[in-house]
């Protein structure tokens, strides 16, 4: 059985929906970061697959920049998270509702 582009796109969809479920049901901010990583990785898979099946390198380039952005996002996000945890002693989303209308 031949593995085509659609197989990879379906896999990417499944992983993306798993990540979205994680984003929607998690309260802990660290767990939310994990779910974001899953989202970024699922998109990377589809980039690499499209790059392979079209014989084009642009998809792989985009995947590299996505990885770079994910790494810097983790660095800044964890710094902010540690700061918040030092001040309020928890990292639940409910404690960050001071701007609620």
């Amino acid at each position, binding site marked *: 059985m031949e593995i085509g582009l659609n197989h990879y796109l379906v896999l990417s969809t499944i992983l993306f929906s798993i990540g979205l479920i994680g984003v929607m049901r998690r309260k802990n901010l660290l767990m939310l970061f994990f779910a974001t990583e899953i989202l970024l990785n699922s998109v990377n898979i589809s980039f690499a697959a499209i790059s*392979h099946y079209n014989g084009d390198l642009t998809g792989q*380039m985009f995947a590299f920049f996505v990885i770079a952005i994910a790494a810097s996002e983790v660095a800044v996000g964890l710094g902010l998270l540690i700061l918040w945890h030092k001040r309020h002693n928890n990292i639940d989303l409910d404690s960050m509702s001071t701007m609620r209308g």
Partner: protein
Amino acid sequence: MFEAIAFYLFSFLTISMFYITVTTSQALYALTALAAGMIFISAFFFILGADFLGAVQIMVYSGAVMALYAFGMMFFDTTREVKEKQGNRFVIVGLSLVAAVLIVVIFAAPIVTDNITALYPITEGVGNTQDIGMVLFTKYLVPFEVAAVMLLVAMISGIILAGKKMDLSLTLMDEDEIKEMKKEEENKKVLL
């Protein structure tokens, strides 16, 4: 044949690992399952012929990002069970599926209509790493430099945000000194 077996094996492993990550109530299980899932994802890159991308995936995610999360988790109370948001499950699952299908339609529309041509075609007889190097340092040089500056900014901001009061050691201080420091901090919070 082997490609199909590898694809199905690794997709099963990746999906189960990420499912554990989003459903478990223990932060440490989530972290280890995420690290395993990242390594399994790099297998897809190797299957697809993107060797350099797979190596970068293993190095950056399992090496750098996971180490960063592991160090960050030392600050948090990870033994406590993670609380969950109580919402309507069907709404959540439905919304996720709709959003994911939408994303795939956005990605697949240009392929289905078949009007894309290879901007930077893969050169025959050249390794993947060499090919990527040639494209990255000619056509994508400016984004590459911008990404480098962005990583530098992220590193400095991470040091500044997380590194406050790192020069003080709580284990080497007396009880009185720690109490005094806490009092000072509380006074500061009142001022803020």
